[in-house]
């Protein structure tokens, strides 16, 4: 038992160091640091303003911007020109200074260096189109994105630790394969497992 806590303690130290890094790293988030909104992203992009269904929000379909989710392994990040396609006419109500940055990137012919939030390991393959075409909502994996002003992923990277130390269920899967498998194992209408749990379905 002693050893267990020794190792656990070590893990904790590392975990805290990692957490400190993530929080510290947020401050470097490009131009957002100068603006009024602190998101860690180069532009304070509010997913809720775009996709939310509250009054004053725009209730857009996710695939309006993430255009290839239905037909490709990648969901697709909208091009700068595609952002500006709408924003050329919509200067933004809450933070027009953030919207104006889009024009800057477009004029400088520069991609917006979004900080990646959702990532599964390189050794796992997640074909978006198979999941979208199976009728899954984006929220099943990504959480209630349409309600988030600042995109955060539920601390998936220390989910295994949470499970271990606190016995909590993970909120978002990410690198936690158990979370993927749990869904793949659910029964379909015939009572059969709804998706394969063969390793080589994702790992190759």
């Amino acid at each position: 038992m002693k050893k267990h806590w020794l190792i656990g303690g070590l893990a904790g130290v590392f975990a805290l160091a990692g957490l400190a890094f993530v929080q510290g790293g947020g401050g470097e988030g490009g131009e957002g640091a100068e603006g009024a909104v602190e998101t860690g992203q180069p532009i304070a992009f509010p997913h809720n303003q775009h996709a939310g269904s509250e009054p004053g929000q725009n209730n857009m379909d996710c695939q309006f911007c993430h255009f290839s989710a239905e037909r490709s392994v990648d969901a697709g990040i909208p091009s700068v020109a595609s952002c500006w396609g709408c924003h050329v006419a919509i200067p933004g109500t809450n933070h027009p200074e953030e919207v104006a940055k889009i024009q800057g990137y477009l004029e400088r012919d520069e991609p917006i260096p979004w900080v990646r939030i959702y990532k599964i390991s390189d050794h796992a393959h997640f074909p978006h189109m198979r999941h979208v075409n199976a009728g899954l909502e984006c929220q099943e994996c990504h959480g209630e994105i349409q309600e988030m002003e600042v995109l955060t992923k539920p601390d998936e990277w220390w989910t295994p630790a949470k499970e271990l130390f606190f016995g909590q269920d993970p909120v978002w899967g990410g690198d936690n394969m158990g979370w993927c498998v749990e869904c793949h194992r659910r029964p379909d209408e015939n009572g059969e497992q709804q998706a394969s749990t063969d390793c080589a379905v994702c790992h190759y």
Partner: protein
Amino acid sequence: MTDGIKRRDFLKVLGVTGASATLTGCSEPERLLPYVVAPEEITPGVATWYTTVCGGCSAQCGMWVRTREGRAVKVEGNPNHPVSRGGLCSKGHATLQHLYNPDRFHGPMIREGDRLRQGTWDEAEQLLAAQITATGNVMFIGGRMGPSMSNLVDEFVAAVNGTRIEYDAVSDAPLREAARITYGATGLPSYDIANARLLLSFGNDFIETGSSPVAHNKGLAQMSAVDAAGSKGRFVYLGPRLSTTGLNADEWYPIRPGSEAAVALGMAAVIADDAGAAGPYADVLRAYSPAVAAQAAGVSEDSIRELAERFASESPTLAMGPGVGGHHRNATAANIAVMILNHVAGNVGRTVHYDAAVSAAAGAYADMESAVSAMAAGQVGVAIVHGANPAYSMPAASGFVEAFSQAAFKVSFASAMDETAALADLILPDRHFLEAWGDSMPRSDVVALQQPVMQPVPHFDSKSAGDVLLATSVHLGNDFGATTFYDFMRNGHMEMHDDSVGDFETSWRLALRTGAVEHDMGTTAAPSQLQAPEVALSFDAPALDLGGDLTLLVHPSPRFGGGEFSNSPWLQELPDPVSKITWHSWLEMNGTTAEERGIREGDIVRVTSPHGEVEVPVWIYPGIREDAVALAMGGGHTNMGRWANGSGVNALALLPSESEQPSGAMLTLATSVTVTPTGERRRIATIEGSSDQHDRPIAPAVALADLGHVEEAEHDEGHAEFQELQGVGGFVPVPSEGGAATAFPLEGSRHGPYAESHDLPRWAMAIDLDKCTGCSACVTACQAENNVPWVGEEQVMMGRDMNWVRIERYIEHMDATQAGDLDVRMLPMICQHCANAPCEPVCPVFATYHTPEGVNAQIYNRCVGTRYCANNCPYKVRVFNWYRYMDENVPEPMNWQWNPDVTIRTNGIMEKCSFCMQRIRDVENRAALEDGRAINDGEIVPACEQSCPAEAIVFGNIRDENSRVSQVVSSERTYRVLDELLNTQPAVHYLRKVTFHEIASGGHD
């Protein structure tokens, strides 16, 4: 362990610390970079394909290029191309590594004293124009180029009053000259190998070099396949050394070097009732009786006579004259002799055609000799070199390096440093063919367009040579009617366009989409009569430079060609199809010769000719005559790039600088050498375990006469000698007595593959060893597709080579002293995907297991690197990452080639053939999107199958009895390697090679 940590918990803790370590070690969060303006044709995550033309060698095969997010990641053969008809060779695959070669120039380079400085394009073009104006006397030395580029160069050179020299290091000039002399042909003859019933190659290595190695490889495979009537074409190789092409022969006539003409004429004399059949060559025919031929060749007169009779009776037949490896002082005459043989046997117009001129590298070395004298005499002001590297590819004795230095201003279009560019005052880095426009005319009735498949690799500020010439012309005040090479080329095609076949735009787009357009040339009358030569020709054995006791055979390397492909780690690490040696050079020597001299394999010897000397290790090879030694081209680069430099020796150092007359080709078979041991030894970087099957049925064969009752022939022989293997084989207990199994075949081998209860496909493969030529295209294709690392010479010597495909080459029968049967078995060994896999139960972490679809999967993220699986694999197909080869060996931008659909493996991971799992998943994904339709047979094509010029590989669902693989496997020739002994139940099925001779004993060989 009651109060200790549980294994699962421990792993989780490890996982957490691992994750935080990764985070803390990372200085910058990962970014997602969108396009600023999204290109219409690109969907992220979906491959976009383009057709183009391979610019690797003079064959100009049709190519499909797979791009992902704007990067070329894989090249494949285009089955719609009328000449190459699908398939691609190793060199073609490796052109990708030249595209992303980190040694490419970063921009135009301008010499300042001893060093080169990077300049701008405008500066470089102005400088070139100023030098041309000031110095004049322009000489343009150009290698192979497309017709439009060739026109532009002609116009450019004419406008500045210069001269143009066409130069190809590896050239078919003697063949072209022979065709011109005998039939007035303008190009090379085209061969219909597939329909020949008896094929003779007089030292022509047609599946490695020549006008179209891929198409010829396909032809050879089709010819040797057993047809419905139960017969197959026979291939006889006549030459002093067996090349890859030669290893595929059914019979070998180890004739003396340079005796091809005598043998061909001796045979023609037997066939022709009357010497008059040879027209103007009647006297020659009379002079070369079979007796004279036998004397010259060192084989029996009877064997020549008998071969001649078969050549006449088994019509249609085909004979091919000596290629690059046989360019001796009478090489044109030797090719003419072979044409006379074809003529008297009635093959012209049937299997050999002179009317559809095949273009080929045929620039004459003689022109380079005059260029060298002009430069040495100070008659050249501006010397421009494009698509050639004469400082490497001309023998040192030529004096090119000294002469080139005499030119007032030296310009190179090399895209990466080479020995010639190193001498230049101005380097104008050309684009790679995958980044540039161009065209090709592989045959006079075929036009193929080369289109850029991606934006130029941004690390390198390159510009297409055509655009540079046009821009320089503007500075010189010349106008060729276009400002870009694309316009120049398109205008040219528009002018040539025949409006009666439809409008230009439509046919242009069609050509871009399909890759090539065939023009109906009408029927030009094939020349029917042999024409007399205008110069005196000698058909005798050529003179050799004396001074040694062994004849030196220098041949183009199947991996490096003449040396232009050497800076590719894939090709460096590709085992040579003959010797199985990687990276370095070796001297091939017959075992008898070596024994006489007390030389062992691996001894480093000094090879001395009157022209130079090299030191190189010996490899003992029964496929070379006792009076000859052989050395491949392509090694010994001194200034080319990080992978080529210092690897091997340059064989050209031993050759004279002399051209053959009348063709003007460079001599490759010209000198004798002495071989003396230096007393040093080295370990050969070979992947070969053994060239002997040690009486085990790994690559069995069947005699043609036994077809129809293969199984009986098998069972008659019995298998008593394998009983000791049976005792240890299989995972199902077998009845035994005294340790040896009593039942045969084993009880276990009658069990079906497991996972039979599922209604899923069962993936399987069939490889027809009667078609496989051992060319090794699949090896490089697999490496490109699956992110398989290269490990370097040192690691190969330690047995750590990582290719997923290994072509086993078993020498069953090979006799260099007399004409007779030849039996060499090629066997592509990949993971056998055993249903009863020995690797699976020994994995402690379940990293390797069987998928419900019958694939033996390797899950990289589970693997902890115990290597038990590799130890237990009877096929030695599992390879281990001893280091982070992919990180450490792959410099930017070569990693742009990586296939994004395949995991990059790190150190400590076992890997092996996955049946191209990513391609299976890709087709499944597409089928699912299309209303969940079923997957069609033949839709999933693994990289090896796609690349195979011989079409020897078939992949598919073996549970579907109508699938191609089921059909092929139903052949009586089907067997599975070691299955009946070990009960491994492989999913890879092989079809026995079919031989003409009786299979000796044991039923297994």
